[in-house]
């Protein structure tokens, strides 16, 4: 079973090839069915493979990667070569299952959501490509293979975000996603080259093992002395920084919702954005060995978590709120990995498993939230909360499932998000990062608040317009079934998988220090804060007589509200830097040099040739006597100069 693990990848690739080359243009419905079939086959292969892997490693060191297969793709110089291989360890197996599940359910959902889209065949082809790329990324046994699939993930997200390419905003969003992540990826590539040069290998097993000692030295870089390990870690982490949309490279993710909602769902839950977190987890032993590096990861993570949560409290667009909640949750995952470095200088591996656990639970409830949001949007034909309200009667199954997902993300026990978030905060506390843990608790409160703000404004209160009124109950089974299925792991995945992550999802080759004893008051505090946030949202938006229109209006709001509503003007800052400084300043100077130096030199050469040519043309005067004279004069001249023999 394990030796043929490549089949998990080949099924979606086959779906992409068949749909993209042939089926998409003939029959969109058949293309969708084929994609569903292939993703189901992929998942059906992944589950027994995971069981077999689990049986094989059970009792031994589960974190040691099992290599399913390997072939050499590019033999480079000496021992340096690029292999393609498949490694199975706790996080890659977990990701295989998560991606398989999410891809299957999103494909099924898209059958309903994209029902009226004329080019849905193309959509299914690209969705399969996306799943294939992400599956290839997680099984990568070497960093170059990871980079290949990393870029494939980038290009498929570009194609899907810009799926409705006749919409200028979708084109702009897809370009934004591509440019921002490519900017970060260029550092990733630099990091790969540097690490391969310094370590002589691209395998994770080497980079996370023997290469650490070889790279732990100071190098001089333009007069500064930097630690080579830190530098390589930073460059590679920057790739994950952009892919996982950490502040300040987060600007592409809220715009990425311009794509169809199933795309947002798969981007935000299982593919694309968790790639950055996955990269950090994959390089965890190396990053943990770089002095002070995990502190950077922790600060970036907790800042993004808090920053995005604050913005999410003011947004009106339902998908935008969810996008900022994704940013916030990704911040949690990064924060957790960073918090593994204890204040005493040791490594607390409980934080690593907490991060993997949060990836796992988050994938289900975030996928559900987006699919549910898609159902709402499909129903009212608008993204804004202004057009919703009172939808619980129209979409009862979606309503119940969304309620469960909101409870999960808000961290209310016993739903899944509570367990993973609790593990993260607990691990941070055990590592001695009191302030960060407090900020994470506060972010949890904000999360509960903005999620239930969305919930109450969308499902309760009086209906506020939208096209969906008067249709009665209106739920499409293609869309409702995946939502209801996802409600099961949303509720249970935390409780059931807790022990698995605790015991098995540990980083390889990292020595853990014995964790501090469990802090009993922390889960209670986290749950209380979540319930407080829920209650605050209820008082403001949910109770009878709450004025939803006033709650959504910007009129009479203070400057702080506008600042947050406009996302702290980060996008405008980017535009300023891009337009004024880069295009206006730097590009203007370059243009001046181009016009006045480069072009001028070319022009001068051309006009000089023309002018000297015009002078020489006067010799061609048609006077035979002049020609003869010139001829004789020339012979004499050559004779005098000694070039002619007598």
């Amino acid at each position, binding site marked *: 079973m394990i030796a043929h693990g490549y089949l998990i990848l080949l099924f979606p690739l086959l779906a992409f090839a068949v749909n993209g080359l042939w089926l998409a243009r003939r029959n969109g419905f058949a293309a969708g069915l084929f994609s569903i079939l292939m993703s189901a086959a992929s998942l059906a292969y992944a589950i027994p493979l995971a069981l077999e892997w689990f049986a094989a490693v059970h009792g031994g060191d589960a974190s040691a990667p099992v290599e399913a297969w390997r072939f050499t793709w590019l033999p480079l110089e000496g021992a340096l070569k690029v292999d393609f291989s498949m490694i199975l360890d706790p996080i890659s197996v977990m990701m295989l299952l998560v991606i398989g599940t999410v891809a299957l359910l999103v494909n099924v959902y898209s059958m309903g959501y994209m029902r009226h889209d004329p080019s849905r065949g193309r959509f299914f082809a690209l969705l399969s490509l996306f799943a294939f790329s992400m599956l290839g990324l997680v099984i990568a046994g070497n960093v170059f293979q990871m980079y290949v699939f990393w870029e494939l993930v980038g290009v498929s997200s570009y194609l899907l975000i810009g799926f409705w390419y006749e919409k200028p905003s979708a084109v702009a969003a897809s370009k934004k996603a591509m440019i921002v992540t490519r900017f970060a990826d260029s550092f990733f590539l630099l990091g790969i080259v540097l690490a391969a040069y310094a370590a002589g290998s691209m395998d994770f097993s080497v980079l996370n093992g023997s290469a650490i000692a070889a790279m732990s030295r100071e190098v001089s870089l333009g007069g500064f002395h930097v630690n080579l390990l830190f530098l390589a870690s930073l460059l590679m982490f920057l790739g994950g920084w952009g892919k996982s949309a950490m502040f300040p490279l987060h600007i592409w993710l809220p715009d990425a919702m311009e794509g169809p909602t199933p795309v947002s769902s798969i981007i935000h839950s299982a593919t694309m954005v968790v790639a950055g977190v996955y990269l950090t987890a994959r390089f965890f032993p190396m990053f943990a060995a770089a002095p002070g590096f995990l502190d950077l990861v922790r600060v970036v993570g907790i800042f993004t978590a808090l920053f995005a949560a604050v913005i999410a409290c003011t947004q009106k667009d339902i998908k935008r709120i969810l996008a900022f909640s994704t940013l916030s949750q990704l911040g949690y995952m990064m924060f957790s990995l960073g918090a593994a470095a204890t204040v005493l200088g040791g490594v607390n591996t409980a934080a690593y498993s907490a991060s993997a656990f949060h990836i796992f639970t988050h994938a289900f409830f975030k996928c559900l939230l987006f699919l549910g949001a898609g159902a709402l949007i499909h129903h009212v034909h608008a993204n804004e909360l202004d057009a919703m309200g009172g939808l619980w009667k129209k979409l009862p199954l979606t309503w119940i499932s969304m309620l469960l997902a909101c409870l999960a993300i808000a961290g209310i026990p016993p739903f899944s998000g509570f367990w993973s978030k609790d593990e993260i905060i607990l691990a941070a506390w055990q590592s001695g990062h009191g302030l960060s843990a407090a900020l994470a608790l506060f972010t949890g409160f904000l999360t509960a608040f903005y999620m239930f703000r969305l919930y109450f404004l969308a499902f309760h209160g009086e209906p506020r317009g939208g096209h969906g009124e008067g249709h009665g109950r209106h739920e499409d089974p293609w869309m409702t079934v995946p939502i209801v299925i996802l409600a099961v792991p949303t509720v249970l995945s935390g409780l059931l998988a807790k022990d698995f992550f605790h015991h098995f999802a540990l980083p390889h080759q990292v020595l853990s220090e014995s964790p501090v004893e469990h802090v009993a008051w922390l889960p209670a505090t986290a749950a209380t804060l979540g319930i407080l946030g829920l209650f605050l949202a209820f008082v403001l938006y949910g109770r009878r007589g709450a004025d939803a229109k006033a709650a959504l209006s910007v009129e009479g709001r203070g400057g702080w509200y506008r600042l947050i509503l406009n996302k702290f003007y980060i996008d405008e800052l980017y535009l300023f830097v891009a337009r004024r400084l880069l295009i206006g300043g730097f590009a203007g100077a370059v243009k001046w040099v181009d016009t006045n130096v480069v072009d001028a030199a070319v022009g001068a050469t051309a*006009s000089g040739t023309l002018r000297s*040519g*015009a002078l020489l*043309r*006067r010799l*061609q*005067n*048609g006077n035979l*006597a002049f020609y*003869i004279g010139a001829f004789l004069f020339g012979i004499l001249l050559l004779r005098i100069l000694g070039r002619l023999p007598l």
Partner: protein
Amino acid sequence: MTLERCLLLAFALFAIGVYGALTRRHLVGLLISIELMLNAANINLAAFAHFRPGDATGGATFALFTIAVAACEMAAALSIVVAMYRRRRNLDLDKLRSLREPIEAEPGAGKAP
């Protein structure tokens, strides 16, 4: 008679030919001047053959050969002159300048010459 005198004669003849070629405005005059230059070369050939120790027939043969070639060349050239006269009714070199570059065309103006 010495070699120097022969060479001086050839030089004078050649110089006269050059002068004529540069100044004659009539096409036939130009041809005559060229013929003078050829003859100067022939004198050189004959003179060197004569004053060189040994057999002189080589140089004389060469001179004869050149004369024959020049005669053929003249026949061709004169027939061209006749054809030219029939066509243009004119043998003035200052007027036969249709192959010259038109001076009024400015550089880069794109005018066909």
